[in-house]
């Protein structure tokens, strides 16, 4: 038997089993020749004829990607960037260059803001106050600021009540200053948020410290990070990023306190520089959010030292903080909103458990359009209204509703500030301002004022704006 035949068998075997590189290395010297075979042409795939495809089966859908099927052309503009549309939605525009300048519009200032003679008229907001209010997010995007040349407010009856409260706080003797607590209630679009803005404006013009929680929902909807507060019993939770942001807002809105010296010793994660001011204190909290809560507590302590200005502390959308938040504790139980440190700070003062030694106003507004149903809050507000206006008609507790006792306890003796519609005189002043701004194209006379006042549900200010200025009747 020639050796080649046995070798051929081995190569055949190797070709089937081992890798070709290995086979080549071992059998490099063996001559590779083609053997006669008919299998290759038999198993070779039939080359397709070009341009001839089988017709699709009946009933099957085929992908048709012909050019020009989709409409080309059109706008080649960029698509909005990430977050651009939200920014557009949340943008607060405070002026309209097309609106006419109202020559008779006077500004509110430090002196006239508490006068009785400004009642029922429209007044402009001075520029520095606009900056401060913008810094604390007091302007809301859905309000009608963007239609007018510059922001202005009508000083309504309830605003005068607020001015009276501010006067009372300021006139208190040193050491026995009042802490006024009020909850603004009223129908939807009756101007509750705008009254909070007016309160902040008055306080700012009187050189108070202005602290605002613009939207209570942001505190409890679990969109900002939270952490347990060490050494608290029962457990409380801090919201560091939110608090840091709040501190920076406080610094921007209250320039007058920035250069006050730090008078007490505070246990902070970072040491304060010698001769520290409140600005340097706040800057620590802004720069390191982990320490923001202890900075906030230290700042509060500084502000409550004797000789410091009164405080205006306001919140909008009260119902959100009167129930469990969306946060979960370590044992997966919902955290009550009162266990969040910022909320607790507010509620302690709202309930009267603590009071401000330098005086101040704790101001809360309910919301008509964005508020969960909280039975305890509603019942407390009914009780408060009855206590103020009709003590003989105290509402009875419905035993079939689940009342949150912590909320009931907190709102035990808070007074309300109910917002009603504008009077016709106020409505007339407002409509004259609209007409002078060029936004209302009509002669403002008694007939028109009466008609629009009635259409607006007896002077509901939001509806009045809608029937006169907005293009949706």
């Amino acid at each position: 038997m020639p050796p080649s035949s046995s070798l051929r068998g081995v190569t055949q075997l190797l070709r089937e089993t081992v890798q070709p590189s290995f086979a080549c290395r071992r059998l490099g010297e063996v001559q590779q020749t083609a053997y006669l075979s008919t299998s290759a042409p038999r198993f070779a795939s039939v080359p397709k004829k070009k341009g001839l495809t089988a017709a699709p089966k009946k009933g099957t859908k085929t992908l048709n990607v012909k050019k020009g099927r989709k409409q080309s052309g059109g706008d080649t503009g960029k698509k909005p960037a990430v977050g651009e549309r939200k920014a557009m939605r949340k943008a607060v525009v405070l002026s309209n260059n097309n609106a006419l300048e109202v020559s008779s519009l006077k500004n509110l200032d430090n002196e006239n803001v508490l006068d009785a003679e400004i009642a029922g008229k429209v007044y402009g907001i001075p520029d520095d106050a606009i900056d401060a209010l913008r810094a604390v997010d007091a302007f809301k995007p859905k309000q009608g600021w963007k239609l007018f040349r510059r922001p202005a407010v009508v000083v309504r009856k309830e605003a005068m009540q607020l001015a009276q409260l501010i006067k009372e706080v300021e006139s208190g003797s040193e050491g026995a200053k009042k802490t006024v607590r009020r909850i603004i209630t009223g129908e939807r679009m009756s101007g509750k948020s705008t009254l909070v803005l007016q309160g902040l404006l008055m306080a700012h013009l009187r050189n108070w410290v202005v602290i605002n929680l613009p939207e209570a929902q942001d505190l409890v909807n679990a969109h900002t990070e939270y952490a347990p507060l060490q050494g608290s019993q029962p457990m409380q939770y801090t919201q560091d990023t939110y608090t840091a942001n709040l501190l920076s807002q406080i610094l921007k809105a209250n320039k007058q306190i920035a250069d006050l010296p730090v008078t007490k010793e505070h246990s902070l994660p970072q040491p304060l520089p010698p001769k520290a001011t409140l600005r340097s204190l706040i800057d620590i909290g802004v720069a390191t959010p982990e320490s923001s809560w202890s900075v906030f507590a230290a700042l509060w302590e500084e502000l409550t030292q004797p000789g410091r200005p009164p405080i205006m502390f306001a919140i909008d959308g009260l119902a959100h903080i009167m129930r469990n938040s969306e946060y979960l504790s370590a044992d997966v139980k919902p955290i009550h909103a009162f266990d969040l440190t910022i909320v607790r700070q507010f509620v302690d003062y709202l309930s009267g458990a603590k009071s401000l030694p330098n005086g101040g106003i704790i101001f809360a507004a309910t919301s008509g359009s964005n508020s969960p149903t909280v039975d305890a809050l509603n019942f407390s507000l009914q009780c408060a209204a009855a206590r103020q206006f009709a003590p003989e008609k105290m509402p009875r507790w419905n035993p079939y509703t689940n009342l949150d006792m912590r909320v009931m306890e907190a709102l035990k003796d808070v007074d309300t500030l109910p917002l009603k519609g504008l009077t016709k005189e106020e409505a007339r002043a407002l409509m004259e301002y609209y007409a002078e701004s060029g936004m209302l194209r009509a002669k403002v006379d008694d007939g028109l004022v009466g008609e629009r006042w009635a259409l607006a549900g007896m002077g509901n200010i939001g509806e009045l704006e809608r029937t006169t200025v907005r293009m949706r009747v």
Partner: protein
Amino acid sequence: MPPRISLFSLARSIPYRTKPQAQWSVQPLVRAPQQCRTFADSKDSTTAKQTDANAQPLPHITEESAKTAKIMGEKGPDISQGTPVEEVVKGDKEMQDKLPKVMQDALKSKNSQSPPKGSRSYSTTAMMTEGGDMGLADMSQSTVVPAAPGAKFPLPSLPLPQGSHVKHRYDGIVEQVTNLIMRHGEKSVAQRNMALILQHLRTSPIPTINPNRPLLPGAPPPSHLPLNPVLYLTLAIDSVAPLLRIRNMKGAAGGGVALQIPVPLGQRQRRRTAVEWILASASRKKNRSTYAQKVAEELVAVVEGRSSVWDRRNAIHKQAVAARANIVLPRKR
């Protein structure tokens, strides 16, 4: 042998429209005075008058214009003083050509300040059928009706002012656009969008008018537009609204070819066409967030002459001009 070209078949290929209600007659309202003299007219009445008028030599130009002004009931030039040459040649093209160069230049520079003449190749002036209202809300009360006996309040005076009827409280064009914006019968959403559009128009900066895309004649200055958003909307829509549409008459051109016949549109139809173009080109935009904002920006683009809707309108008009030979007017008697 009969002639090979049949006159009847020739006449049959000429298209004509048979629908009488779609025809309109173009007849001058004022007939030109008869040029020819009938047998009853006296032979030399006109010529005699002419000779009378022409018998006197022409007075001095200042005297002449003073006389003309006196006839017209205006205050003419002072005869004791001379008349400036500019006033004399005003409106007289032939005389202006013969002026010295310096005065011609002065005249030209004065003319260039006036708004440029439209470069549009067709006359597109449309008659206002609604008496030039332009969408201004009429808030004024009409005359007071005497009180009905025994009633506490007097009867309302009719017609009610605009905005007083709950079903017609919006301006006509606003209502039409709202209905065109509406999708799936959601009118409230459409109304909200309409309000947003008008609000965008009133807060957007004053538009700069492109002289190549002239708006309706008699349009207010652009600075007035944002303060009156309904007028802004009306102006944008009416300015690009086409005057005609092309009706294709099937097979009328012979050989299966459709014959294009321009058909005039009514005001509401014109507005509808324009709004549909605007909405289509707005919804093709990708870069803005809301539909209302896209539409509002398209409206601003129309007024500023940037919109592609103008080209569409011009194309229709051009086509209509080309096809105007296909219109068959009724035979004059």
